[in-house]
């Protein structure tokens, strides 16, 4: 299927289309405290820079992997309003540190019509400060028929 558009997003539903990126200007260490509570995860590398230094991992607290993945999902939700996330497979490939600028993005790799709507497969990624991707993966969404 070619030539369609995701409702309200302006993103053309064609293989090769780059999804509108979603950026966070600076990852907030206070947000990591919230995520520690959401995840019931008291790991100090997310809360105390001294714990990160002690492990030789850097000098800033490290964002939780699921929080990084949530940026990617939020990017998909913005690119495809009204869509349903069917599946997601992600590899946690690197760390995101406090105050990093992160950008989530993706590319459509497959578009197929089906009874319930349009099924879209995307490669997705998250980068921090232009480093190698912290997350790579693939997502499948369905856009309902309008």
């Amino acid at each position: 299927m070619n030539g369609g558009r995701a409702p309200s997003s302006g993103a053309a539903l064609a293989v090769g289309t780059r999804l509108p990126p979603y950026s966070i200007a600076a990852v907030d260490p206070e947000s990591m405290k919230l995520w520690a509570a959401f995840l019931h995860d008291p790991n100090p590398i997310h809360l105390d820079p001294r714990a990160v230094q002690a492990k030789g991992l850097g000098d800033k607290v490290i964002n939780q992997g699921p929080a990084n993945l949530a940026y990617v999902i939020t990017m998909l939700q913005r690119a495809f309003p009204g869509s349903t996330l069917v599946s997601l497979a992600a590899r946690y490939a690197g760390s995101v540190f406090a105050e990093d600028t992160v950008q989530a993005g993706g590319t459509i790799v497959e578009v197929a019509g089906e009874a319930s709507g349009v099924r879209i497969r995307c490669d997705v990624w998250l980068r921090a400060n232009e480093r190698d991707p912290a997350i790579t993966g693939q997502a499948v969404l369905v856009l309902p028929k309008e």
Partner: protein
Amino acid sequence: MSPAELPPPPGVDGTSLAGTTPYVISAEENRALCASLGAAAAADGTAHPIYFFIATQVGMGQTVAGLCALCDFDVEEGPVIASSSVTFSHALMTEQPYRVTGEINSLVRKRSRTFGVMDVLEYALRLSLPDGQPVLETINVWMLPRRSLA
């Protein structure tokens, strides 16, 4: 020490990770989570899909530290999450009780350029409605560094 000489990892394959109490995504927490991402919570009660990870991880019958302990691994040694995958049958909703079931799929010991030796832990978790209707299945893979065996 060749790979064949490494001591075997604990035999934990098939260990149940079923939760003991239903997990409920609170609407208030979902709003706070969405705000932390710079997004607005859905008005129709749909929860952010990242709750696939949170609900299963928090609702399973083990803390991360407890899961590591099952594998004879001290959480203070620093488990590293490697991958997550999920397949949804239904969207997640706030204020809906979910039952968590699951099990350890495998614990495999191998040599690692990064860690010397590590155990690769794979486990599956499922969310279902109280009537048993499936909602999602997720598989997580963690690396457990075994530097003392390197």
